[in-house]
């Protein structure tokens, strides 16, 4: 059972390594959007500290959105999606593998670079740590929820815009608790509660979203 998940992850990671431009462009998009804020606002440290969690999280949502349209579209175009749907395993497990692979190449790099970018906003060491933890915990949920949107808009013309309209509102809870964790830490309340909720959302998204995506993919393949 889990074999198929690992096979799909290995295949998608290999493909991503052959097409590194995609990973790098989403990562640079994140870096540049976040860096524009300190440059635009100027050296007002209190304001920057207040803005930091929101800016980083919004940029992370948008950077995740960038790679979502291609999650299933490439496989759909060359016919491999049909073969995945015909594999003797439930399609939900195949999609679980694709979601995990998507997170490894889109969410994980964001979490790793986030503390460096946080320094531009004069965040304290503790706040940087919570920020990294929050992005690490929250981005798998973004990949999972995004997969539903990507599956629903598969094969539609102008699907990219529709995908954003569909998925971004669903990202709001992750945004609120992700940014809230850092805010709570900065104000001394402690961000553990927010982080627990983020982890719960991620577990729910990884558990359920692939099966919803699989149902949508079956409709797209008809």
């Amino acid at each position, binding site marked *: 059972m889990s074999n198929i998940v690992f096979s799909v992850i290995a295949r998608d990671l290999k493909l991503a390594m052959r097409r590194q431009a995609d990973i790098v462009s989403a990562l640079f998009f994140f870096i540049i959007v976040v860096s524009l804020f300190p440059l635009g606002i100027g050296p007002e440290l209190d304001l920057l500290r207040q803005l930091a969690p929101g800016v980083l999280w919004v940029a992370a949502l948008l950077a995740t959105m960038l790679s979502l349209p291609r999650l299933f579209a490439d496989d759909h175009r*060359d016919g491999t999606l049909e073969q995945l749907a015909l594999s*003797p395993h439930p399609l939900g497990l195949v999609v679980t593998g694709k979601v995990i692979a998507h997170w490894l190449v889109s969410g994980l790099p964001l979490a790793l670079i986030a503390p460096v970018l946080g320094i531009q906003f004069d965040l304290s060491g503790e706040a940087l740590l919570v920020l990294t933890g929050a992005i690490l915990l929250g981005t798998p949920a973004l990949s999972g929820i995004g997969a539903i949107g990507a599956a629903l808009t598969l094969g539609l013309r102008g699907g990219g815009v529709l995908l954003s309209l569909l998925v971004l509102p669903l990202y709001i809870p992750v945004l609120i608790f992700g940014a809230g964790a850092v805010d709570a830490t900065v104000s001394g309340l402690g961000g553990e509660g927010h982080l627990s909720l983020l982890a719960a959302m991620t577990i729910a998204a990884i558990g359920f979203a692939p099966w919803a995506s699989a149902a949508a993919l*079956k409709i797209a393949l008809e």
Partner: protein
Amino acid sequence: MLEADNLECVRGERRLFSGLGFTLDAGELIYLQGRNGAGKTSLLRMLIGLLPPETGEIRWHGKPIRKQADEYHAALCYLGHLNAIKEELTPLENLLAAARLAGEALSEDNAIDALEQVGLAGREDLACKYLSQGQKRRVALARLVIDRRPLWILDEPFVALDVAAVDWLAGIISGHLQRGGMAVMTTHQPVAIPAGTVRELRIG
């Protein structure tokens, strides 16, 4: 044994065919014929379970395929008009990945053997985006060389192949029928398959 019973296909507003039925036993091949747009590919997609028929039922060994999707897919090899190969991967990687996803054990040596048989010797390690149309088709067909699943469903398998490759593929399909396999395929060029029972089914 594959049975189709009273199938009806509606695409958009148009009814493509109705009341279509057949049985396919071990060692038999069905040549699906019909003009463009008659619903050949739609019928194949029904047979692989991706398109639910409007009415009627498809049974594999007496049980409806939608009630045993995983078992049925384990017995089924489908080759669509898309090659289902990844341009970034090499022919060898494509073949190994396809076998792994289909849940089959395939050693690297056997995969290289299969690629040699389809005339891709020496190109195993070249990314597929550098291959020609015909060569990409051969990478897809290499799956058939090693495939031992009983039911093959092939959509226009002879497209983009040269004369020698058409003969070779006809031989591969005969071998499959001789081993007791079954096949359903569409084609516009009638190709003689030397072994097995060949039947024609005309739709539309």
